[in-house]
């Protein structure tokens, strides 16, 4: 892609072809304004596509194999370890990393911080992608996935935490599709539908906060059913749901920083200049939010230990593992983010964000798998189970990228290309950014 951009190609960013003044057709938009041959050529030149291709070639047959021969043929899920990587990673990790949608929705729409508008759409899409793929992981894990709608229509187990999770994820997925559809409607040029979504934005955002508060917490509350299985240091009857909710805040924010870093490195051609020039200042803003959530999380984790008087466990091997998780996944990113914010070193912030994301992965896997059955025995996931988990994650990346290439997430859709060239502000009503948007936000030097 980079080379054809160098040769003067400009990806579709408005309904009309700049050169021929002709309206783009839907299929043409899908191919980013390239001919199918050109599109294929650039795709084959990208080594990452080959990596994805290999993963899919190996992984998809294994997924088919799983549905023919059952869960037992590909996982180490057992009667002692009912849940493996599909839920341990796919559900319990993907959902907190996708809290970004409701966080940035709240920041921009509810608190009126329009200066975060450029990154909002990426955050919303990140949320939608994560939840959608959490459901995909779930479908692979469920014994009878075709019965997924049962808790909605056939039988209601209203006293179950999972009932709440199921309903909330379903409703929130709908909310997120509506939130992201704004950019889709721009892209397919359905102005009426976009207008409608804009009108209900506040309602959608508030629904998002409610649903997220409850189901992020509920994922933690699920483990209160297993007080004798989860290690005491990771278990807290009273606070586990608050731990999960609080950590989802920095998880979501750091995931947006991480994804935007990858985007900047790998698909700068798709980003508008303004998006790129304002990314650093927005990254610092997100980092400030994340660091507040991190320090809060650290404090309440300590309160959790004190509340149940579990200090003695810290001296055991499990305790060292716990300290390692907190030191590497909470304290280290907190330090990196703090240093980065203070010295406006965006590179350090990005490193901190990746560390925090890793910390969340470790925490959720610890709770769901590693410390689960801590006094029984430890289970190692089946190689095919890991392969499927990697395949689905590759599918997540591919789908994510497919949408980022097309919808106006990283760039603003220009309704009339003539106007757009005048250099008007892309994101409406940006305080302080009117006039010279790039100059106003480019005072932070980029380390990389």
């Amino acid at each position: 892609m980079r080379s054809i951009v160098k040769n003067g190609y400009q990806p579709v960013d408005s309904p009309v072809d700049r050169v021929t003044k002709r309206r783009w057709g839907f299929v043409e938009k899908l191919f980013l304004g390239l001919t199918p041959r050109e599109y294929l050529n650039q795709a084959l030149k990208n080594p990452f596509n080959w990596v994805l291709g290999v993963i899919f070639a190996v992984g998809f047959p294994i997924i088919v194999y799983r549905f023919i021969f059952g869960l037992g043929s590909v996982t180490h899920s057992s009667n002692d370890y009912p849940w493996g990587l599909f839920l341990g990673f796919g559900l319990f990790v993907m959902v907190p990393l996708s809290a970004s949608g409701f966080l940035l929705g709240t920041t921009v729409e509810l608190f009126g911080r329009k200066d975060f508008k450029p990154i909002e759409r990426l955050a919303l899409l990140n949320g939608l992608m994560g939840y959608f793929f959490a459901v995909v992981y779930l479908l692979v894990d469920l014994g009878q996935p075709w019965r997924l709608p049962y808790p909605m229509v056939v039988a209601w187990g209203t006293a179950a935490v999972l009932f709440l999770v199921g309903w909330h994820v379903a409703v929130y997925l709908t909310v997120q599709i509506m939130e992201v559809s704004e950019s889709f409607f721009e892209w397919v040029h359905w102005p009426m539908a976009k207008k409608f979504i804009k009108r209900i934005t506040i309602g959608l955002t508030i629904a998002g906060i409610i649903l997220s508060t409850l189901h992020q917490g509920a994922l933690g509350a699920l483990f209160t059913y297993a007080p004798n299985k989860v290690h005491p240091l990771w278990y807290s009857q009273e606070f586990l749901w608050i731990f999960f909710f609080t950590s989802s805040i920095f998880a979501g924010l750091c995931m947006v920083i991480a994804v935007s870093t990858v985007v900047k490195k790998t698909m700068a051609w798709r980003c508008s200049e303004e998006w790129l020039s304002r990314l650093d200042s927005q990254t610092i803003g997100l980092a400030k939010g994340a660091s507040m959530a991190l320090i809060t999380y650290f404090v309440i984790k300590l309160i959790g230990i004190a509340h149940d008087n579990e200090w003695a466990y810290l001296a055991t091997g499990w305790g060292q593992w716990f300290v390692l998780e907190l030191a590497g996944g909470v304290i280290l990113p907190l330090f990196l983010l703090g240093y980065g914010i203070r010295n406006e070193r965006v590179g350090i912030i990005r490193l901190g964000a990746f560390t925090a994301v890793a910390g969340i992965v470790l925490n959720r896997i610890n709770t769901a798998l590693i410390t689960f059955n801590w006094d029984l025995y430890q289970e190692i996931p089946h190689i095919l189970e890991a392969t499927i988990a990697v395949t689905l994650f590759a599918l997540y990346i591919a789908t994510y990228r497919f949408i980022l290439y097309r919808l106006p997430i990283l760039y603003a859709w220009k309704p009339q290309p003539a106007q757009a060239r005048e250099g008007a502000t892309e994101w409406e009503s940006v305080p302080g950014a009117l006039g010279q948007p790039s100059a106003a936000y480019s005072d932070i030097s980029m380390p990389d």
Partner: protein
Amino acid sequence: MEKITRRKFLSVSLAGAAAGALSASGQALGAGNFMGYPEGMGVLVDLTRCIGCRTCEAACNKEQHLPEPALPFDDMSVFDEIHHGGQKRRTDENAFTVVNRYDQIQGPPVYRKIQCNHCNEPACLTSCFVNAYTKTKEGAVIYNSKVCVGCRNCMVACPFRIPAYAYSSALNPVIKKCIFCYDTRLKYGKPPACVEACPQGVMTFGHRQNILKIGRERIRTNPGRYIDHIYGETEVGGTAWMYLSNVPFEDVNFDVTLQKEPILANAQAFLSQVPMVLAIWPALFLGFHRLSTRGNEDVDENIKSSNREESQS
């Protein structure tokens, strides 16, 4: 202006609450202190009488039409089996009850039969999001495979690690566990097959209230013979199957760290917050919105438009 705003404020709050309520649900309907049906049946297992003959396993296998095991039921080498993770045998999709031998430092080995304990307030039941489990008035915890989605949360929740899953089945994997012979026996007032088959009279079947009394009586009239505890009387809110032992319960691999409250009680800290979040968040965050965007011309348009939310969500 002020009046209209307030009305709109309220309607938006209601819309938000409706959005939440639709998805709602989490209220714990089960009473926190449900202690079982008064007429519920139970079984007292006296470990001091068990000789490890596995007749109960054979009876269960026959009654529940389970497949024939690899080793016959009179093969006692199964007691020496070490399974994955250094574990002794456990219940699985083909065996709803299992007897294990526990060698003691002093004295003869003690045999322990495991099966579903049929909790008064079962964790499997309360963790199930499709209500696949039912606690019958006779005391059995039964399972409806027709609605089971296969999330296996019940297996995570069961404090005794009893429910097993038919992982090998691709098209119709279901939970397999002891159902107290509900369909064929308990419903008609008959004891389960394992109890009836036992040649040693290890198990006493009766109303849970009565067999508790029998258990206490046995402890009282045989000083020194039993540990002064009936396992299952109070564990996780009480179970229908209870145990007497002459050795400390942890020496026969009982989990002695279990709480006295039903497992559901743990989730209630969270579940009780659900209606509050649903009710308070809309007004709270709309309030924040008003406070932080006051003077912004977007605001009124936003509030106006969010009225539509009511019909939307």
